[in-house]
């Protein structure tokens, strides 16, 4: 059956780089552990199941260089194993505690299965979760793309050298991780300004994604339902807000269904303190443990939430998958009737929504893909390269400056709650550029070269989007501000040491171990554009 439309699902997997080898237990490292157990492993398992059943998923997954580095970090791998082991131990106790309660027992078994699955998958791939993703891409099941080196919101970087460094370092990192050149680039926060194009092209990228209103121009005759060619030759896909909203929104979308698991009610806050003490932080303060026995229920207080029923949740998944596909078919037909084109519907989501926040998300994705195949629906899942290989010549469009952030521009990253760090990031970037220019054509001693490269790494880390964003939403804000200060100070100090030829090699080695990403980063990426 000829497809009436194409669906391009893009999952953007990203976490900020958090690695504190100096601490046995560090609160913010849990973001990574939760991401692995609740999102990355379930997604990999879901993809494996589909492939095993002869169904090609056709998903596009963006893996940020910071997440890639954490997935390959041996120190974090050991901590992750400890995290999973402790959860398995807790689930053993939980299975015993609730054995006479059939409702809770069903959910407890689900969590025991979740942690076992994580342990088995990690063991199967010897701790390296990049391997299965690489295999899936190699066999043509999915397409993997990258994003800026440390997920900087590119339009908020004042210096073109910083743009180039964020993009070029990401391209090199992708090549080293996936053994091939990257074609696609996820603009962090879909934040676009026209300066990014030249650097994307220089680094060999062929396409990127933007927010819907970036292509709200008369030249974009098909709205967000076609690929376009941006000036300079790169292809651009714009996010379809309609299909995205149904999935991401707790208020309007599927994840808010009363049958789904409630995110905010957690055993870490419900259980007797003595009972869960071994699984809390060293200081014994309560925190979410990821074990949640309640369902959303409805607009009621957390204390009034009812118990979760996995079977009811799975029934909702089936309903929502069917509804999602029916809506896409209707959408495709309406676009065809209005514009005479078979649309590509680009649905972009943060990967961590699936599993971590929307617990049933991976099951929903699997159901959507299976149903399309099993019910022979006239829809096809395509990856960007596939689509570009077969679509008509894209029309030329000049995308507009935009992001997918609140209000459509850069408010979350440039505001009164986080502007105290903006100047430091910009100033240390300028310092880096000046020093790179100075050393550009010089023979540099090995310690100085290491110091300059680590300084470049620290500058990139200071530029990450996550720090100002956390300050904006008031979550882990102190930690975020300290990270910016710390990276900026590390960079400034390393640059001074390189200039003064007095590198503290012991301290440098510790920093290289701690902030260990972008393995072959070259400080010269920061040299002035005119000198490069």
């Amino acid at each position: 059956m000829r497809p009436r439309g194409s669906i391009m699902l893009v999952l953007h997997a990203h976490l900020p780089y958090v690695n504190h080898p100096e601490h046995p237990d560090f609160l913010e490292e849990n973001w990574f552990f939760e991401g692995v157990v609740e999102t990355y492993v379930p997604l990999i398992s879901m993809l494996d199941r589909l492939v095993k059943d002869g169904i090609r998923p056709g998903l596009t997954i963006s893996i940020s260089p910071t997440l890639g580095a954490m997935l390959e970090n041996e120190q974090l791998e050991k901590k992750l194993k400890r995290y999973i082991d402790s959860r398995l131990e807790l689930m053993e106790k939980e299975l015993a505690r609730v054995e006479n309660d059939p409702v809770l027992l069903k959910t407890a078994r689900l969590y025991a299965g979740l942690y076992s699955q994580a342990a088995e998958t990690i063991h199967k791939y010897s701790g390296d979760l990049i391997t299965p993703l690489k295999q899936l891409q190699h066999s043509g099941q999915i397409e993997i793309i990258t994003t800026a080196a440390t997920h900087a919101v590119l339009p908020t970087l004042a210096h073109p050298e910083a743009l180039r460094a964020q993009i070029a370092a990401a391209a090199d990192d992708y090549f080293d991780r996936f053994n091939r050149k990257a074609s696609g680039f996820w603009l962090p926060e879909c934040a676009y300004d026209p300066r990014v194009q030249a650097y994307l092209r220089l680094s060999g990228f062929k396409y990127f994604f933007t927010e819907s209103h970036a292509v709200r121009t008369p030249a974009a005759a098909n709205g967000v339902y076609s690929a376009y060619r941006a000036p300079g030759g790169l292809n651009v896909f714009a996010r379809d807000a309609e299909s995205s909203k149904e999935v991401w929104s707790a208020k309007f979308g599927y994840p808010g269904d009363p049958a789904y698991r409630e995110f905010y009610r957690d055993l870490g806050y419900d259980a007797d303190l003595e009972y869960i003490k071994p699984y809390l932080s060293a200081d014994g303060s309560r925190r979410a443990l990821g074990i949640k026995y309640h369902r959303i229920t409805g607009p009621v207080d957390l204390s009034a939430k009812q118990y979760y029923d996995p079977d009811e949740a799975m029934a909702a998944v089936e309903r929502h998958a069917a509804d999602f596909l029916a809506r896409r078919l209707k959408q495709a037909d309406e676009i065809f009737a209005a514009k005479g084109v078979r649309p590509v519907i680009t649905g972009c989501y943060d990967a961590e929504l699936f599993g971590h926040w929307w617990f049933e998300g991976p099951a929903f994705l699997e159901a959507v893909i299976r149903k399309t195949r099993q019910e022979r629906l006239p829809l096809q899942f395509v990856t960007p390269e596939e689509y570009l290989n077969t679509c008509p010549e894209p029309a030329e469009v000049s995308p507009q400056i935009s992001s997918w952030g609140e209000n459509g521009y850069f408010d979350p990253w440039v505001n009164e709650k986080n502007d105290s760090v903006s100047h430091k990031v910009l100033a240390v970037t300028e310092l880096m550029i000046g020093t790179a220019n100075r050393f550009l054509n010089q023979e540099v001693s090995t310690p100085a070269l290491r110091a300059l490269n680590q300084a470049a790494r620290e500058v990139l880390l200071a530029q990450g989007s996550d720090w100002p964003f956390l300050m904006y939403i008031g979550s882990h804000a102190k930690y975020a501000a300290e990270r910016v200060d710390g990276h900026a100070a590390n960079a400034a100090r390393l640059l001074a040491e390189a200039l003064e030829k007095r590198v503290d090699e012991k301290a440098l080695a510790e920093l290289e171990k701690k902030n260990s990403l972008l393995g072959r980063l070259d400080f010269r990426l920061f040299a002035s554009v005119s000198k490069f």
Partner: protein
Amino acid sequence: MANFVDYSYDMPDINELLRNSDRAYLLVRNPSSVFVCWTWSRARAEAFTAGVYDGEILIKLSAEDDNSPASEYPASWAAGKLYLKPPAGGRICTASVFARKKDGSREKLMDSNSALVPGPAAAPGLESGYASAEFFRKEPV
């Protein structure tokens, strides 16, 4: 465990490290607001405190394709930052920082980087699909 960053050596004061020159930057927040921030070198800060310059500086926002300054905003030299309304959307803007000397003459101290301000044509839809907040938000919405 407390949220803190335990660096391998004493963290130098980043503000001190960066006080080697005057700097001004302009960042775009949205079509109707840009952020301008500035810092002074030690020498310039001393000049302000010694009264070489008037304590009130002037930030001028101008569009690249239009040489006449579109808007001027006074600020305290020590304020370090200001949110301003850009002269026009869809144009590349620069902020220039001026100070008044004792003799009443104005001196241009520095220019910021240039940045493209969004034009009105690119107004976002009512329903942005922003999702990133959810991962870190640990309390009910």
